[in-house]
């Protein structure tokens, strides 16, 4: 059974169609990279897959469960790293991670393990509002993988990270993690290197869907023209 199966997915906000007739299938353990200019519907797609938005048309199956009817069955099996870090600014990194760990039934040892992994153990007691964007992104990565999710939904996951930090989080959210991933990216070469499958969106519609081996960087660049 595929990890993701979309058939004619549509989602609108009032009159505006954010996604229209999106269809694809992604096998377990594979990586789908979604390209498209700002406003193309990438983040909306991630939020639908994360069960945070209802699909308005079409059929969506995530990890074998139909959305939105069986959304309860996939919550806790998805890790979302979006534009917002989903961290309380007044709480420290450790307090935030402990809070999310309790919501997911994960032990506190995992929190310390991840703080070490993203090299934030030394600043873990400081309020998130005092951390740099890159540090916040590292904590957000730790939050997204805290419960060892089967499906990772990553919206420009390396934004705000310097090269050293990118290497730091790669074992957690890169190909090495081995989980099924959906990544939104604006980086054609970097994105293609991570992809098994490529989806190109433009104005909420599918412009390109193909295996990564069949797609050239030029085709991705064309989406942005």
């Amino acid at each position, binding site marked *: 059974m595929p990890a993701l199966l979309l058939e004619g997915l549509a989602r609108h906000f009032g009159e505006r169609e954010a996604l229209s007739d999106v269809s694809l299938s992604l096998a*377990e*353990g594979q990586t789908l990279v979604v390209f498209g200019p700002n406003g193309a519907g990438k983040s909306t797609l991630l939020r639908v897959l*994360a*069960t*945070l*938005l*209802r699909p308005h048309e079409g059929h969506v199956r995530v990890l074998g469960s139909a959305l939105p009817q069986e959304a*309860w069955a996939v*919550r*806790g*099996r*998805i890790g*979302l790293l*979006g534009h*917002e*870090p*989903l*961290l*309380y*600014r*007044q*709480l420290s990194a450790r*307090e935030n991670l402990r*809070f*999310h760990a*309790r*919501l*997911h*039934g*994960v032990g506190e040892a995992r929190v310390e*393990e*991840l703080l*070490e*992994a*993203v*090299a934030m153990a030394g600043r873990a007691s400081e*309020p998130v509002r005092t951390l740099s964007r890159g540090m916040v992104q590292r904590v957000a990565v730790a*939050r997204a993988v805290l*419960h*060892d999710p*089967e499906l990772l939904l990553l919206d420009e996951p390396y934004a705000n990270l310097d090269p050293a930090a990118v*290497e*730091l989080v*790669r*074992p957690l959210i*890169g*190909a*090495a*993690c*081995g*989980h099924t991933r959906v990544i939104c990216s604006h980086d054609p070469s970097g994105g293609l*290197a*991570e992809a098994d499958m490529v989806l190109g969106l433009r104005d909420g519609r599918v412009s390109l869907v193909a295996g990564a081996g069949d797609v050239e960087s030029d085709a991705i660049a064309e989406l942005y023209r």
Partner: protein
Amino acid sequence: MSARAEAPALGERAEQPARTPVRPPGLAATVNALLRKELLVELRTLESVPGMSLFAVTTFVVFHFALNRNSVEGDLAAGILWVTLLFAAILGVNRLFVADAEEGGFDGFLLAPVDRSAMFLAKALALLAYLAVLELVAVPAFALLLLGPSLGQSLPGLLAVLALGDLGVAVIGTLVAALAVRTRARDLLGALLALPLLVPVVIGGARATAPLFSLTHATGPPGRWLLTLGLYDLVFGLIAFALFDFLLED
């Protein structure tokens, strides 16, 4: 886990790691986690309780001068206390979900495999705690600035009435705050929705409190008003519990 563990080169597929089975937390554990977070955020920001308390004390000072009286008793005293507590509570209601809405707390919670009613219970308990602290400040200030009869004998009865009133404010306030927080005019909408729904609580609270503030010192609050408050709390508690999940849905 090492941060720089040997990662395969880009594009190279790693073995699928064995997933540790995780048991989702139960309702009590989720409420506990949410409540701890809620109180921690309030302790750090001091955005709700100090504002509510200061508002109440300031209002009593205003009443003190506006009425041009050194003391009030009976119906008037009960009315002043309950109306002041109501408006102070609205300040807390308006702030109840702001951090969650602005900092992604809703999404973080919705992604977790937990009962969504836990958020209602945790928020209502947090609001109840804020109201208790508010009253720890406001009631002595009221007794000092305005109340004629001493509180001594009537204190147990007053505490019972306040507890029932607070429960109603917490339940209705949480429901209304969850409704209003996703709108642009949340501060206005929160107050506009909460005030009519809380009028029965104020009426019940004031009627039950008035005999306690009379110069003749009633022994306790009238039972029928306590019962009215209790029933109102129960009905709205059930309605809010049933509706809350839908308010969090997209």
